[in-house]
């Protein structure tokens, strides 16, 4: 296992702010993707949630990474609604619980947090790989993170691997016929479109990768 630089509360805040900016930037794109096979609000939903989240980060700047993650979680749960709100909210909540009490996070802790987030997503959404949801981006991303950790990679490499796998996973949702979420109402007609939640998840891993301290 490589000895990386530990992730601090400020790093987590920075990641959340970065992702918030990415969501704002991609708001219309995400909404358009959702209009094609859902109800056209995914970008709007996430952006509403993260716009509400960012101002609250100052309150927890002196706390632990888990405090930040929990604040993100409760704000998303309270402000987003729809499917993505409680799903992303649960992911952040579980990630926070997984690293509760720690002041800094090493590689193992980061991967454990990602692991817990994915488990939370699956439990909440009752979806699995191949259902054409955000799970299809998260699952390979978390697997890649595990593999990198097991292979002794440092944090930047772990997160870079996760981000690349998330993008691949996102793209692989294109041919799928949706079985969960609104896109499932389309049946066969859902094939040929990328899943909006998988797209926002790939952006999340992208924002995470830039958490580059190496």
């Amino acid at each position: 296992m490589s000895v990386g630089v530990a992730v601090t509360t400020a790093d987590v805040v920075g990641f959340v702010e970065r992702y918030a900016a990415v969501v704002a930037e991609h708001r219309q794109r995400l909404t358009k993707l959702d209009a094609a096979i859902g109800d056209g609000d995914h970008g709007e939903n996430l952006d509403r949630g993260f716009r509400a989240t960012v101002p609250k980060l100052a309150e927890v700047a002196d706390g632990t990474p888990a405090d930040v993650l929990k604040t993100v979680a409760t704000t998303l749960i309270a402000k987003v609604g729809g499917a993505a709100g409680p799903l992303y909210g649960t992911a952040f909540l579980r990630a926070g619980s997984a690293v509760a009490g720690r002041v800094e996070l090493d590689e193992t802790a980061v991967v454990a947090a990602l692991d817990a987030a994915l488990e939370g997503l699956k439990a909440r959404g009752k979806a699995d790989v191949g259902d054409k949801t955000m799970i299809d981006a998260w699952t390979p991303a978390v697997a890649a993170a595990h593999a990198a950790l097991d292979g002794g990679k440092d944090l930047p490499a772990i997160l870079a691997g996760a981000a690349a796998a998330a993008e691949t996973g996102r793209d692989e949702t294109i041919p799928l016929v949706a079985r969960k979420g609104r896109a499932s109402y389309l049946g066969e007609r859902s094939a040929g479109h990328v899943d909006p939640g998988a797209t926002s998840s790939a952006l999340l891993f992208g924002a995470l990768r830039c958490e580059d301290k190496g």
Partner: protein
Amino acid sequence: MKKLINDPSDVVAEALRGMEAAHGDLIRVNHDPAYIVRADAPVAGKVAIVSGGGSGHEPMHGGFVGRGMLDAACPGAVFTSPTPDQMQAATTAVDGGAGVLHIVKNYTGDVVNFEMAAELAEAEGASVRQVVIDDDVAVKDSLYTAGRRGVGATVLAEKICGGAAERGDDLDGVVALCERVNANARSMGMALTSCTVPHAGEPTFTLGEDEMEIGIGIHGEPGRERMPLEPADRIVARLLDPIMEDMPLGDGDEALLFVNGMGGTPLIELYIAYRRAAELLGERGVRVTRSLVGPWMTALEMAGASVTVLKLDAELTELWDAPVVTPALRRGA
């Protein structure tokens, strides 16, 4: 986008102010978190019924709050499920000690948010049960999918369960009745035009001048298939046939027929559709003994209609007829 609105992001909040101003005798509105409760909530000893979902379906659900129907409604952003904090606060506000039923339309967002709210409310000591309505036969159901959407049966379940709660049924009884309504109801909808979500600013989908979308949901989600526009009688058959195929309803049975407008279709057209649906049911020996016609569960200004058939028995009929005093549906008081 041509709408009678101010800032798109204020649509729901301003509409709630309007509801509050117009119906202060029947309802109270809480603004943060947003929910609507009947004016006399909580009613001690009565099972409380809470529903909610994205806005844009008015009068559902807020217009159905009042004696004999809902105790509370939680309005989300347009076409976006409300959040657990709203649902939890509403649940607490109406809990009269006899338990709370959450009537939830089957959309991932609604189901998951209501689940979280129930967990939160139960942690505070409330007794909460959830019934998920999934009556839309346009969606193929299976163990592996999100399942059918909840549409028209929701309105009927809210009315009937509201009547049961009002007469003093306990939580188990109201839950069972809600499941019975859901089991005995089927729906299917269609659209002639799209709707425009205010913050999106553009129509959710586009249909050609000669096209319609069969099997549409109430959020502008695409439907089962897109096809050339047809006369009303043919369209009604396209909606009713899959309902009847899926439903235990036949010769000699009694039914409630609900022809719902999606928002942009005038009432005169809904009556044309109702007429044909009633004829078709009559031809199969079904006796339509109760009716509901109008824009009761809408998709903003979308033009289109849905048909819901509920198989009735004596108890469901009696509860359908029971008094109800809400901003939108009122009878017997």
